[in-house]
Structure formats: structure tokens, C-alpha cells
């Protein structure tokens, strides 16, 4: 019977500690940096060196993510494993009955000191006796912790799989959860790396001695400084910042005296807690285990509660570093100094990135800087001279890990999960909606007239030509930003379409006194309201002190005859209801194209169906040979 076999296998994968990393390093070196995790890569991967094939490729910095500057997601890249072994796998002697399989597929595992075990998938983990650590978090039995001198008993049980509904909607989420050997279980033991299929094997997470030392120093710091600790890890891309931050967070919230930390997510390219382009302050009360798309922060989440967010509407702050720093500075004002703050900086450590990091350490009053070396000596010196009060810790950067997804793909997955995430009722686990985003009932938001639901469309970065604003907006991602009512007048000037219920006479007289009568809001020929750029060419970004990013939205369609935008947002109806009397603007910028959204219903309904209808921005691609390396748009299949 299956359970017994499972138990055997699981047992076979028990691992022993401190058998270290030469093996791991060698294995890493062998692996190509970018592992193809798809059977069908989404990226065009024909190796045709002729211009006709290259002519179709966008030149936007996203091509060729195999180059070494691609930021991997250390620790969660290859597989979505919620549990990482801390050492390389080595099978102990068989026998001993260390793993028992329960009736409902749950496993009870007895571990001796310093043993680790690894399971891949989604599962509940309970420590029955002793103490276990996972990704830096320390777990103990919830009731009457009994110390056992000789080890720990943990129980792993399967869960109602939730996030896996996304498999059906996008190939990005497939081939990630290992083989389906155990249909009744949402997890399975990690095979040893000696097995075939090594490209898909996850690598164990190693917390080396130096990291341990830094962690314990930071932990002591938190205890002694009455928690006025603000930590920022500084390092290049793929140097292990996010992994370090997670381990640190998990270690800190495991302290019984603390149980809560604040996380300032300032990496708009690969955020830990939100969709890309967003900077957020999050209250963390549970260990951060899965990859970022498994734990989006939201205002209602009991574990990762979103306190406040701003958007820069781009995956990099290169267009407006001052606004980026202003957003970060504003967010930190909302951080309760009673709790330690962990800052997730982005991995841009040279040039403009270095000077922004320098500004951030001062603006955020960072007290602890963790340098993941090697770093540019100039940056290190600059940080040290400017932050005389801060303590500096040094760690070697972690070796880059192979990634299964390019950064653009990871962002796509994260944004997709964000849109499918259902705000969970308190205490319950996050849930994901299995409906294709195209069949979600959109919000119909009027953009003109006295009851307009949004007041203006603001472009960050480069502004599209007003004649093309509708075409640019249609089917793209935007951010919904709420403005404070006093500030609204300044930004929108004498807009006569304010959402406030004041009588209109009053309205106009007031705006005449507070602002020049010039109306900043212009309208396109479709009446879309927009704010024209100043003579310097850019639109002034919204002041983070008086505005707040509420959510992202997908412009599902624009109903120009009725002057209605169809927006899909992850917000619940009650959250939208609470926004109805607020001043809202739409911010667009250089968000990634939501390619996943255009294809979800196609993937959901299987092959052939769906392309018979008009489908904007999508065509079928045939695999092309050398001679015909151009698109051939097929005649639409006559299905049925």
C-alpha cells in the first residue's frame, strides 16, 4: 500500500547536518543558471541567428534574461518548497522507524538532533515534541512544550490545496510542484539530488556559520536596544538579500518576546509581498516560507498585514529616484518603532542605485547594515561615513542559484497571484480564485460626469500621446491611488468633477481662492481625464504624504460610449464600497504587460478553444523553421 512505500521513501530522505557545501557548490556550478522549467518556454527560444527572427524581438531590457545580471530568487527559485533542508542530503542508516504514516496521509517524523528533512509541496507542519527550525523560524509545540533530549517529532499533514488552482490558468505555475505521484497528498518527500531530473531538484538552503553569527548579533541588538532596530541588507542582485531578510524575519518573530516585525518592501522589481512596482510596509506575524507569490500582503491578511503602500508604477526607480526615496521615507513614518524593521532594498548597487541606497540609509535611520560582499568599495565607504551610528555586518554573498523563471516571469506570476488572491477572513489561510480573470465581474467605473469614479489618469515616466491614451490603457495594468481630500485640490486643481458632495457653487468659489483657475485635468477625445505633463516633460508624481496606493487594477476594457472603464481589482466589494466616496486617480507607468491575463481563459479551456473569437493583442505562433522565421497567423481553427 502506498502509505508504507511513502514512509520508506521519506525515511530514505532524512538528512544529516553539517555535511557541507563543497558538494552543493559543485552542483551549482554544473547547473546552468537558467533552467528551463517549461516544456514549452514562453520566451521565443529559437536559436536562429538571422535578422528576420531577431526583428520580432522587443528590445526593452527583458530580452535574454540569461545574462548574469538577472536576479534570481534565492531559496525559492527552482521549486515551491515550503520546507528547505539546511544541509545537503545524506541518507542515514535505514530502519529505526523514524517516519510513521498516518491514516490520512499525514506523516509523523522523528528527528534526532541536527537532522533535517525536506518535503516539497504544500502542507501543514506541526511540531509535536521538541523544537524544529524551518527557514530560520523556530517552531515548538503549541501546548505544553516538552523538551526531549534526544530529538524532535514533527507531523506533516496535507492541506486543501489552494494556490494550485493557478496551474490551470498559466503554464508558469506548472512543472513546479514535482510529479503527481501521490494524488492524495499535497506534498512529497524531496528526492535526493542524485536522482535524475536534477534540473528540477531544489537546492537545500544553507545557513552558514557567519550568517548565524550575524543573526545572533542582530537578535541581541533587538533585545538590547528596546527594539529600535532597523536592518537593511545591501548587496548586488542574486546575492541573497531576500533570503537573508526572510531568515532574519523568521528568526525575530520566533522570539516569544516579539512575535511581530515590520517589513519595508522597497524592491519594486521583485517584491516580497506585493505586485511589482509597489513599495509597501507590512506587518509580519508568521514565518515567511513559500515564494513571494504564495503570500501576498493585504489589509485583511492576519499574517502579512499591509499597512500602507505606494506605487512607482515601474519595476525600477530609474526614472524618478527622488520619488522612490520620498515614498520610502513616508512609509517608514508609519512604522511603529516598538517593533524591529527589516528593509528589503533592491539590488542596484552601482551608479544611481548606490546613491539612492546611500540616501535611503539616512532617510530611514537604518541602525544595522548587512553588507553582502563583495561590494563596490566606494559604496561601502560612503555608507560608513554617512551612517556613523549604524553598525555594519559583513557577509559573503551567496552563490547565485539556478532559477526556473526569469525575473519577468516571476513578476508575472506574482502579479497573477495577487489578482487571484482572495482576501481571507481573519485566521483562515489565503485563498485563490480559480476563475479566469477575463470572466471576473469587472467594476464599471465612470470617468466623466459628476459621479466619476476616478478623477484623473496620471502617467509616471513617459507620457503617451493623448490621442493614444485609450489604446495604451486598454488591457493594461494600472494602480489605483487614493488622494487625501485636501491634497486633491492641489493636484487636480479646480476640477469641477470632484467626488465630494459639496454644492457646485461652493466648490468653484473655493477652488478659485485656493488654486489658479487653470484646470490641470485635460480630456482626450474619448473624454478620458489626464494630467498633462509640465514643460519639463514629466508629470509630477503624487506626493506620498497625501496619497496611498490602494490596489492594482487591470483595465479590462474601455466602454467609450458610456464613458466607463471596466476595471478588475483584487479588492473585495466591501473594500471598494469604502473607497466610493474617496478621491481616486489612476496611475499608469511602465508596469509589465499583463500577458498572463490575456491567456488565462485559453489555458483554462484547453487547446483550440477560444481563439475563434476576436482576441486582442494575442495571436497564435507556429513553430517556425529557418526559412520562414516570421509570424504566420493561422486561419482560425474551426473547432467543433
Amino acid at each position, binding site marked *: 500500500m502506498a502509505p508504507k512505500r511513502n514512509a520508506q521513501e521519506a525515511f530514505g530522505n532524512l538528512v544529516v547536518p553539517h555535511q557541507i557545501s563543497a558538494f552543493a557548490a559543485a552542483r551549482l556550478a554544473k547547473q546552468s543558471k537558467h533552467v528551463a522549467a517549461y516544456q514549452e518556454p514562453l520566451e521565443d527560444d529559437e*536559436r*536562429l*541567428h*538571422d*535578422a*528576420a527572427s*531577431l*526583428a*520580432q524581438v522587443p*528590445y*526593452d531590457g527583458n530580452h535574454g534574461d*540569461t545574462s548574469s545580471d538577472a536576479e534570481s530568487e534565492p531559496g525559492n527559485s527552482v521549486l515551491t518548497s515550503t520546507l528547505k533542508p539546511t544541509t545537503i542530503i545524506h541518507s542515514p542508516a535505514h530502519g529505526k522507524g523514524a517516519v510513521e504514516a498516518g491514516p490520512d496521509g499525514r506523516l509523523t517524523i522523528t528527528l534526532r538532533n541536527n537532522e533535517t528533512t525536506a518535503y516539497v509541496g504544500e502542507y501543514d507542519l506541526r511540531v509535536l515534541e521538541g523544537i524544529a527550525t524551518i527557514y530560520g523560524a523556530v517552531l515548538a509545540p503549541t501546548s505544553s512544550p516538552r523538551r526531549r533530549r534526544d530529538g524532535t517529532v514533527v507531523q506533516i499533514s496535507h492541506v486543501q490545496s489552494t494556490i494550485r488552482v493557478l496551474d490551470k490558468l498559466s503554464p508558469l505555475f506548472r512543472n513546479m510542484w514535482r510529479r503527481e505521484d501521490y494524488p492524495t497528498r499535497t506534498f512529497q518527500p524531496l528526492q535526493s539530488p542524485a536522482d535524475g531530473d536534477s534540473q528540477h531538484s531544489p537546492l537545500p538552503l544553507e545557513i552558514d556559520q557567519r550568517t548565524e553569527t550575524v543573526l545572533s548579533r542582530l537578535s541581541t541588538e533587538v533585545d538590547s536596544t528596546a527594539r529600535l532596530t532597523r536592518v537593511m541588507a545591501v548587496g548586488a542582485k542574486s546575492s541573497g538579500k531576500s533570503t537573508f531578510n526572510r531568515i532574519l524575519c523568521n528568526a525575530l518573530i520566533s522570539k516569544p518576546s516579539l512575535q511581530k516585525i515590520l517589513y519595508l518592501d522597497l524592491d519594486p522589481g521583485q517584491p516580497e509581498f506585493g505586485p511589482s512596482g509597489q513599495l509597501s510596509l507590512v506587518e509580519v506575524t508568521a514565518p515567511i516560507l513559500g515564494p513571494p507569490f504564495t503570500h501576498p500582503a493585504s489589509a485583511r491578511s492576519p499574517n502579512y498585514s499591509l499597512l500602507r503602500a505606494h506605487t512607482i508604477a515601474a519595476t525600477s526607480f530609474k526614472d524618478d529616484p527622488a520619488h522612490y526615496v520620498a515614498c520610502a521615507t513616508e512609509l517608514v513614518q508609519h512604522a511603529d518603532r516598538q517593533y524591529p524593521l527589516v528593509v528589503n532594498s533592491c539590488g542596484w548597487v552601482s551608479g544611481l542605485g548606490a546613491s539612492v541606497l546611500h540616501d535611503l540609509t539616512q532617510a530611514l535611520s537604518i541602525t544595522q547594515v548587512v553588507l553582502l560582499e563583495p561590494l563596490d568599495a566606494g559604496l561601502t565607504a560612503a555608507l560608513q561615513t554617512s551612517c556613523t551610528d549604524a553598525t555594519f555586518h559583513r557577509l559573503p554573498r551567496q552563490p547565485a542559484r539556478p532559477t526556473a523563471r526569469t525575473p519577468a516571469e516571476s513578476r508575472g506570476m506574482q502579479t497573477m497571484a495577487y489578482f487571484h488572491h*482572495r482576501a481571507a*477572513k481573519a485566521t483562515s489561510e489565503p485563498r485563490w*480564485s480559480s476563475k479566469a*480573470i477575463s*470572466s*471576473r*465581474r*469587472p*467594476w*464599471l*467605473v*465612470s470617468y466623466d460626469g459628476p*459621479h*466619476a*469614479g476616478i478623477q484623473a489618469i496620471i502617467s509616471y515616466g513617459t507620457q*503617451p*500621446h493623448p490621442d*493614444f491614451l485609450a*489604446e495604451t490603457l*486598454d*488591457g*493594461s495594468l494600472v494602480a489605483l491611488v487614493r488622494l487625501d481630500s485636501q491634497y486633491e485640490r492641489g493636484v487636480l486643481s479646480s476640477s469641477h468633477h470632484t*467626488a465630494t458632495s459639496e454644492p457646485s457653487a461652493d466648490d468653484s468659489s473655493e477652488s478659485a481662492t485656493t488654486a489658479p483657475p487653470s484646470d490641470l485635468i485635460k480630456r482626450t477625445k474619448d473624454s478620458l481625464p489626464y494630467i498633462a505633463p509640465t514643460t519639463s516633460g514629466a508629470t509630477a508624481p503624487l506626493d506620498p504624504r497625501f496619497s496611498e496606493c490602494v490596489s492594482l487594477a487591470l483595465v*479590462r*476594457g474601455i466602454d467609450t460610449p*458610456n464613458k466607463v472603464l471596466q476595471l478588475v481589482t483584487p479588492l*473585495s*466589494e*466591501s473594500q*471598494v*464600497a469604502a473607497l466610493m466616496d474617496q478621491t481616486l486617480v489612476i496611475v499608469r507607468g511602465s508596469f509589465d504587460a499583463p500577458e498572463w491575463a*490575456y491567456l488565462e481563459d485559453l489555458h483554462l479551456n484547453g*487547446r483550440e478553444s*477560444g*481563439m475563434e*473569437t*476576436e*482576441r*486582442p*493583442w494575442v*495571436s*497564435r*505562433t507556429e513553430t517556425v523553421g529557418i526559412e520562414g522565421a*516570421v*509570424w504566420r497567423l*493561422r*486561419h482560425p481553427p*474551426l473547432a467543433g
Partner: protein
Amino acid sequence: MPRYTIHPWRTHTDLLTVRDQLYHLDTPAPDARRYAVDRILSCWKFRGNLPHAVESTALLIDAQLHHQSQNSERSDFALRAVYTAAFTRFVTGFCDIGRSREGLLQPSSMLDVAKRIGMPVHFVGLRHEAVHEELPSLGRLVGAVDEGLRWLWEVYWSRLEVSALNDVESNGRVDDGELKDEVRRVLKAFRSSRRDAFRTNRQREAEHQSEVEAFAQACGRILDGDSRDRQDVEMFATVLVDERFLVPSSRSLGDSMDGAFTLWDPLLSRLIQSQRRFPATLVERLHTQLTESTVQSSKDVASEAFALWLLHALELANTYATHGSTDASLQAATLRVCCLYPGSWTKMVGQRLLEGDAELMADYQALFEASVLVANSETMEVDTEVGTAHDGGPSELPFSTRDELVAVRYSALHDHSTAAVGWRRALFAPSVPIGIVA
């Protein structure tokens, strides 16, 4: 498994239009090139996934347009700088992409890449000169940009197919009016064939059965037409319902509809079986008929007929639909319509549905009764409690419906047009792809 490409143009036709404008293939409107360049650089570029060939073409032509413009402020440097920037971006992009495609550890030189991809090597030479040496003279730049545009035509634009898809969109599609006439013709013929059969009492004969079969196939062909568009199904249902094919002309209030049902059932049941979208579209059309008649007078003969047809269509869908769960959601959708548009006939439909289904009863009865009350007394307070987290599960439908009620009433308070309120939740889940307004 098919692979899909996402591109910034909405349809292939858009891309071909832009090509014609850029390369003067159409009758030259004076601003056509400017318009096409702006569209590429100031719209498609922002949408992402813009092929480098398209972007380069727009950059090079933008430089030409800059040169041709009558701006007296334009300095020689500005002119050369614009040409240079466009040209270097064009060349660098191709070489970068080519290089990353090679995936070599030791990246090859730009010159090597250019040779390999068949780009004239002097493009690379000119780029090198422009970046590292003096800015090239205007004459050389103008020549190089022309040559670049010809090369781009060669490697990209000329290879775009005026595809079959495009034919369907522009030429192959039968004109909508013609198709409608065709539908009318088939429906009328079917109706008279059935009437004749009943009159001569041969409705059960094999000969007549095969006639019916032929009509069903004719309708199927219309619905399966070239474009296989959802619009065809909608158009069909619109003709069928709106043009009163289903309602006996001599009908008076309270008459039984059994005759009409018997007449149409053989055709409708076959279409429900064979056309995935037909049941929902038919029911939707009937909803519209019921809710659009502004005065839902209890005396209205047609409204009564549509209400009875609605109930009958749901039953048919229930019996014949082969496509899974559609029937249950259709009933729920109908109930929501009944709640949102209280009137004597929607009330009748709602009551019948509730009586027939215990589950619906549990979900909707309270709401339904409340809506009837709302209709009767305008001062009725609607519970403003909005639904908590919902994932679209059937048991949560009543919550969202209540929200809709709130929104509808809210708009009714402020304005009599339904588009008045800032945020409203769409009543139905759309069945069209992103980017299409249903």
C-alpha cells in the same frame, strides 16, 4: 499545445495599416507617417512586447520627419543627433538581441553578430563612429537611415503576411445585414413548415422530422459561420426573440403558450445541444425583453409571453444542455434579474423558479421578497451591509446581488441614468476576452 504571442497591436490588421502608413503604401495622407510613428513610439512602446524592427523603423522615420519639418530653430547638431540616436539604437538593439540569442560564454563582437544575422557591416561601422568618434556628416546619416529602412523592410515588414485572419476580418465576413436576412428567412421557413405539418397532421412523420433536421443544420451553419463569432449567436438570438418569432401574433393575455413551445422546441432543443453559447444567449435576450419594456404592465401580452418563454427556455436548457453546469447558473442569473427589476412578470418568473428549486430558495428567497417589497414601497431601506470576501461560489451570490441592489438604488438616488454612480459591479461575469467590451 499552441503557443501564443502577445503583441502591442490589437489585431494583425492594425500592424498592416501601420506598415502601409510608414512605407507610403496607401494613398498618402499628409500626416499618416507622423500618426503611425506616434502610435508606435507613444503607445505600442508603452504596451510592451514591441518588436525591435517595428520600434527601429519608427525611430528612423521619426528622424526623417524631424528633418523634413519646417522648424527654423533646428540646429545642425540637433538634426545629426536625432539621426544618430535613432540609428545607433537600431543597430545596437539588433546586435544585442543577436548576441544574447547566441548564448556564448565569450560574447562575439558586434561585427560578428552583424555578419551572422545578415546586417550590412557598415551599419556597425557607422554606429561605432557615431559613438566613439565625430558625429557623422548629415549626408551620410541620411543615406544610412534610408538604407536601414530598406533593410528593415526586407527582414521584417515584407515578410508579414496579409494573413487569412485578416481576410476573415475584412472581406470574408458576410455582411451583418445579409446574415440577419438569412436568419429571418430560415426562421420564417421553419415556422411555416411546422404550421403546415400541424395543419395536415403529419408532424410525427419521418419526412417532416428530416425537414426539421435540415432547418437545425441550416441554423447550425449560420452559427458556425466563418468568424465563429459570439456575435453570430447573439445576432441569431436577437432576431429570434426581438422580432417576435416566438410570440403568436393573435395571442391575448392568459393564453397558453403550449402551441408556440411545441412549434419551436425541436429546433431550440437541437441548438441548445449543439451550440455551447446558445442557451445563455437566448436566456439573456429574454431577460432584456422582460426588463427593457419600461412599463411592465401586468396587462402586457408580450411581456407575459416572454416571461413564459423564459421559464420554458430554462427548462429546455436544463434538459438538453450538454455543457455542464450552465443551467444552474442560468437560473441564478434569471433570479438576479428578477430581484433587480421587480415587476409583475419578473415576480411571476422568480416565484416559479423558487418553487422549483430548494437550493435557489435557500439562497434567494429573502432577497427576492425584499426586492418585491422595494418595488412596492419606495421608502424601503436596503441593507447596506456589503458582502465579505467571496470567491464567486454559488452560495455567495446573494451577497453580491445585494451589492448590486445597493448600487442600483444609489444611482437611482442621484441620477436616473444607470451610468451615474462612480463604481458599479458588473451584473454578469463577462464571457469575452480581455480588451473587448461586452
